[in-house]
């Protein structure tokens, strides 16, 4: 049974296995070759592949989709934890940036945040230097 685990950024695993385990939406499932076609969402958790030589390989995934065919299993793994409110927050952020942009005040704000970051970095440097002096190095 061919197993492919891919994420949007890279291919994670590709190979032949005897059995396959995954945390599907309605509970953990194990898949042997010859399984009925199945399409399922996955919860964050461990995906385990039992290779033909008896070895196990485990991957942590933060959710995604699972496609099972009689002779192949495909995991479309998410690279990030997906939760409705998390996605929502990111979307609101993108929208707000756009709104700020429309008001044409982005330059000022960038400047202010850069200055704040700069001050923070300087403070950190000062602390490190103080610590070094005390340590006699």
């Amino acid at each position, binding site marked *: 049974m061919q197993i*492919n685990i*891919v*994420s*949007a*950024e*890279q*291919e994670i695993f*590709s190979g032949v296995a005897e059995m396959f385990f995954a945390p*599907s*939406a*309605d509970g953990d499932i194990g898949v042997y070759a010859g399984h*009925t*076609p*199945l*399409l*399922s*969402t996955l919860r964050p958790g461990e995906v385990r592949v039992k290779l033909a030589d008896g070895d196990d390989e485990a991957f942590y995934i933060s959710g*995604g*989709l699972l*496609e099972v*065919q009689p002779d192949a299993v*495909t995991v*479309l793994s*998410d*690279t*990030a934890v*997906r939760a409705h409110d998390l*996605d*929502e*927050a*990111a*979307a*609101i*952020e*993108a*929208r707000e*940036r*756009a709104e700020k*942009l*429309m008001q*044409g005040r*982005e330059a000022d704000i960038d400047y202010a945040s850069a200055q704040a970051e700069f001050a923070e970095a300087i403070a950190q440097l000062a602390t490190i230097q103080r610590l070094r002096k005390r340590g006699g190095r």
Partner: protein
Amino acid sequence: MAAAKEIRTKIGSVQNTQKITKAMEMVAASKMRKAIERGLASRPYANKIRSVIGNLAQANSEFSHPFMEERPVKRVGVIVVSTDRGLCGGLNSNLFKTVLTQLKKWQGDDVEFDIALIGSKATGYFKRVGGNIVSEVSHIGDAPSLEQLLGFIKVMLDRHESGQIDELHIGYNEFVNTMTQQPVIEQLVPISRGEIERSANHHWDYLYEPAGEEVLSALLVRYLEAFVYQAVVENIACEQAARMVAMKAASDNAADLIDELQLIYNKARQAAITQELSEIVAGAAAV
């Protein structure tokens, strides 16, 4: 010798510039290789998703989703993928020109548009020309993660879901080869059925866990996200390629400039020596 000294300083400053452009060229070359690798690495995911959707379309003929339905177009959304930094030749301006042409066409057809921007170059440009900017992300770096784009994409997909836009397009640079980058505009939503490859005929359906509708919509959202991610990665490869070419041209120009200045410098030096000699000879003759 005042003129000669001036020229020498100028040669020095051009040489410094040449050093910088050469270094940038080499950095861009190595970044380009990495960006291309990243683009290739993201391909299996998109292919797999496409084949799953293809299987789904095969298995279930009445399968449909808002992302797949054509509806009368009153307002469209456009995602513009640009770079964060300049010094990459005409890459961004070519893309913006292509996008503007398309926007004008829509305007002619009485179709309104919302703009979503990736990269600070697009931000700067569309802020100047105007337009309704609804979503923005910049400073995603040379190795972007999908996570950085999720919120950005969701804004546009939500707008489609709520009926604010009827179509979603994406404009980015396609990587043809190192010398050629092609600005393209492609339609994301509705997903054209031709896009989904149709494999062999079969008469089975999946078991769905949970309900079919939910799985399908998760699948389509991921497909669109993967599409945008690939466009972004490809655009980065284009950026580095364009920068490499631009910096190579700059280095060559600097070399030409140095040769020219060297010639002028030699002439000035010789003229000064000749003048000094003739002054000495004239002086000796006077005595």
